[in-house]
Structure formats: structure tokens, C-alpha cells
């Protein structure tokens, strides 16, 4: 199965092309240029959009605008090409790229997205439970390096590849391919206006 994988939920947007277990290529840029990378990969592999058989897409959590760009790209490709989509959480992809580490994505406003008992959660950076000696990866780990290291955690160097949700992991983790419209974003926070209304 020829799979196009993409994740635009963090500042570094990634794409990968994979056939079964073989990664044909992988690139990184920004959400707005994600299809440019896809076009390069397809060209290198001498393939066309019509050859794709499935899309794996990062469902976040992460930047809301970036996340939506990836999801609408995946959903529209699915409609246009008649192929199924599978969602993979950005946190799961990060964890897959750094076995034994805890993924931490910057949620802005001094909050982070992380896995708590394998489930995505949004919490105040200060409330992050750090296990001494354990590794922490992702742009949230980089941002809150001081806090994590103070509590005994380990954060790889800022430019380490483990901080990026590489799309090769989405391609490999993708399960349950289905209609694109059924692949939903993981927001974890209601819009501010809605929270204000509830008060």
C-alpha cells in the first residue's frame, strides 16, 4: 500500500512517502508548504498523486491552524483521489520516534500537550510530572527544558531529530483507514470565546 503521511500540527511540518514498511522519502518544512514537499517526494519516487492508496495524517494536538491545514489537505486528497485516511496522534508519532521518552508539544500560553497514561492531555507546563532520568521530546520539551531538567528529566539537544514528529512514524502507526471526514483533530481546549460563555 502506497501511503502519503503528513503532520502539520507543530512548527516543523513533515511529510513521508512509504510503501508497506519501506520509507521512500521524508521531508520537513512548514504547514503552508507541505504539498510542495509532497510533490518533491513524488517526483523523486517517479510517482503521481493518482498512485496514492492511503493518507496518514497527524491529528495533533498542536497548533490549531497548522493542524487544520494538514487535516483538510488529507480530507480533500481523500475525496479527490478516492483513498482512505487514517489519523495518528502527533504525540504518538513523537513517542514512536524516541522510544522510552515522553512527548511534550508546546500548547502556547504556558501550557503543554503530553501523554498521561497513553492519553493526550493539556496541562500547565508547571504541572508536568517529570520522572528523573526519563527523556522528554518535542517542541514543548525544548521550550520548557529548564523546568524539565530542574526536575531531573533529560532533554536532547535543541536540534535533535527526536523533537520532530517525523511522518514516517505516522505511515507506520496508521491503522483503521476510513473516510477522511471521520478523521478528527485533537484540540483538547475549547475556543476561548466558548469558555468565556460558560463562565
Amino acid at each position, binding site marked *: 500500500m502506497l501511503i502519503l503521511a503528513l503532520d502539520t500540527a507543530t512548527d516543523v511540518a513533515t511529510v513521508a512517502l512509504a510503501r508497506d514498511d519501506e520509507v521512500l522519502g521524508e521531508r520537513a518544512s512548514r504547514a503552508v508548504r507541505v504539498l510542495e514537499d509532497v510533490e518533491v517526494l513524488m517526483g523523486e519516487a517517479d510517482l503521481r*498523486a493518482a498512485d496514492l492508496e492511503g493518507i496518514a495524517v497527524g491529528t495533533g494536538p498542536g497548533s490549531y491552524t497548522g493542524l*487544520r*491545514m494538514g487535516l*483538510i489537505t488529507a*480530507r480533500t486528497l481523500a475525496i*479527490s483521489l478516492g483513498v482512505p485516511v487514517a489519523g495518528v496522534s502527533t504525540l504518538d508519532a513523537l513517542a514512536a520516534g524516541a522510544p522510552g521518552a515522553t512527548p511534550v508539544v508546546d500548547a502556547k500560553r504556558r501550557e503543554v500537550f503530553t501523554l498521561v497514561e497513553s492519553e493526550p492531555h493539556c496541562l500547565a507546563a508547571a504541572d508536568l510530572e517529570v520522572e528523573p532520568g526519563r527523556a522528554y521530546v518535542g517542541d514543548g520539551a525544548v521550550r520548557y527544558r529548564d523546568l524539565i531538567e530542574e526536575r531531573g528529566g533529560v532533554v536532547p539537544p535543541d536540534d535533535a531529530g527526536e523533537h520532530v514528529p517525523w511522518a514516517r512514524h505516522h505511515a507506520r502507526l496508521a491503522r483503521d483507514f476510513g473516510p477522511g471526514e471521520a478523521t478528527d483533530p485533537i484540540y483538547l481546549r475549547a475556543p476561548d470565546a466558548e469558555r468565556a460563555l460558560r463562565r
Partner: protein
Amino acid sequence: MILGIETSCDETAVALVTQDGEVRSNVVASQAELHARYGGVVPEVASRRHLELVGPVLSEALERGKATLDEVEAVAVTRGPGLIGALLVGLSAAKALAWSRRLPLIPVDHLHGHVASLYLEPGALEPPFLCLLVSGGHTLLLDVRARSGYHVVGTTLDDAAGEAFDKGARLLGLGYPGGAALDRKARDGDPDAYSFPVARVPGFDFSFSGLKTALLYVVRDLPADELERRRADLAASYQHAIVRALVERTRAAAMELGGQPIAVVGGVGANSELRAALADATLAPLPLCTDNAVMIASAARYAPAIPFPQYLALDAYATAA
């Protein structure tokens, strides 16, 4: 055939239009009800909804146009101005659609889109003409010499006409978005009951912020039961002041430009009093006054197409450059 996508504000819209300007389908999913409880459009709420709606709206546009994607020859999309997060949903969808089918992409300016609501068959308007563009975010007088563009001769110095309608409607307790509701209420009122001042600014520019303040003072000083009784009169008088300002300026500009014919586009172009006052002008078809994708696909016929695959890094813009 051109497929147009519009997601600049709170309408998710997809349309099919032929090169000759024939409308094959026009689907608009309005989010107005969703935003009503916030008293205005909430960008994050709008963007979330666009993500949910683009797919279904696209499918419905194809179905209603009895067309398949194979018949689409170019994809047109609003690139700006508008809410950046909302625009990026439509732009990303348009890129994915065009890329996957190796089609050209035609980025369209939303305001050019409003003007292009006049270029559809039957009865497509031929430039030159003077266009009054009155919408939620803009009040412009445009000197239109060719279908590919326009030259701005007047603009608002503060609030847009649509904004004035929406703020007035809120003050009168008519809900959001209030333009259409105020229009309906005004039909039962006396337009001369109150005299609201219309600021006179030099040239062909507009100013509506004083008007809203004047209405605020009147409403504030009225006892609640009295307000209830005078609501229609207030709506009619307030609307009359806006319409008079628009009509006076537009007619003066048309004269100045050598007696050019007048055309009206944009959401406020749906206003019944404005339509009656400019009955001699070319008025955008009612369903195409507020945001839609037909106008975007229409404008694309007169905008440069970017060939496959040169558009893949294209970004949206929130405000005009």
C-alpha cells in the same frame, strides 16, 4: 469549468461556474447561527467549522451541479482578505484538490470576488462602471475599467456600512448578524421619525462611526417600554441615514467620473431600501450579495491562473497588501 472555494469569514462555500459565466451550482453553509451566541464571528470557532464543512459542501456542490471532479478545469480560491485561520482551511483544500488532479490554481482577492458577482450570465455587466462595494468589512467606491481589476476612489474612514448595520442592530436588540433583521424591522417604521447625522467627509470617502454613537445616545435615553414601541422607527431612521450617505456619495462619484453607470455589490447590497434608492443601477443578484463561492469562481475567469505545480507554497493574507 471552474470550481470555487470561499472560507474567508463565517460562510463555507463551494460553487461551479463555467468559463462563460454560467452558474452550475452554488452551495453556501452559513455559520451565522453558530456565532450568534457570541454576538460576532469568533475566528477559532469559524475555522473549526470550516474544517468540518468544506468536504460536505464540496460534495454537495458537485452533486447539485450534476458534475464530477473530472470536469473541473481549474480551482479558484479566496486568498484574502479575511480571517487568516479560516482562509488557510480553504486555501489548503484548494491546493490539495488542484495538486491531486494536476490542475491550475487561481487565487482570488475576496473584494474582486464581490465585484465579479456582476459578471455572471444572464446579463453580465460590461465595464466601465462605478461600483459601490458595501460589505461587513468594507465600504468602497471602485472605478471599474476592466473585469480584471478596479481602482479605489473612495473608502470608509472608520466603520464599514455592514458593521454600522450590525452595531445598530445590536443596540436595538435585533441580534447578530443584524443587517437583514434591521432591514426587516425598518419596513414597519418611519424613516423620518429621528434625524441621525451623517458625517460629511471630503472626497468620496465615508464615515459611519458617528451614526452608531448617535443611535447609542437615543437608545440609552429611552425608557425600556418606549424603546420597544419606537424600535421600528429607530431602525427605519438609522437605515435611512446609512442609505442616504451611500447613495449621495455614489451618485456624486459617478457624475465626477463622467456619468458612469452605477453597480452595487456586497452583503449590504441586499438591503431593500438601498436597492430601491438605486433602482436604476445594476444590483448584484440577491443570493450573491453576501459571501459565496460563485463570485470567487467568476473573478477567477479574469485573474491570472498559476500553472500546476507552482502554487504549492502559496500563503493567504489577512489584509490587503
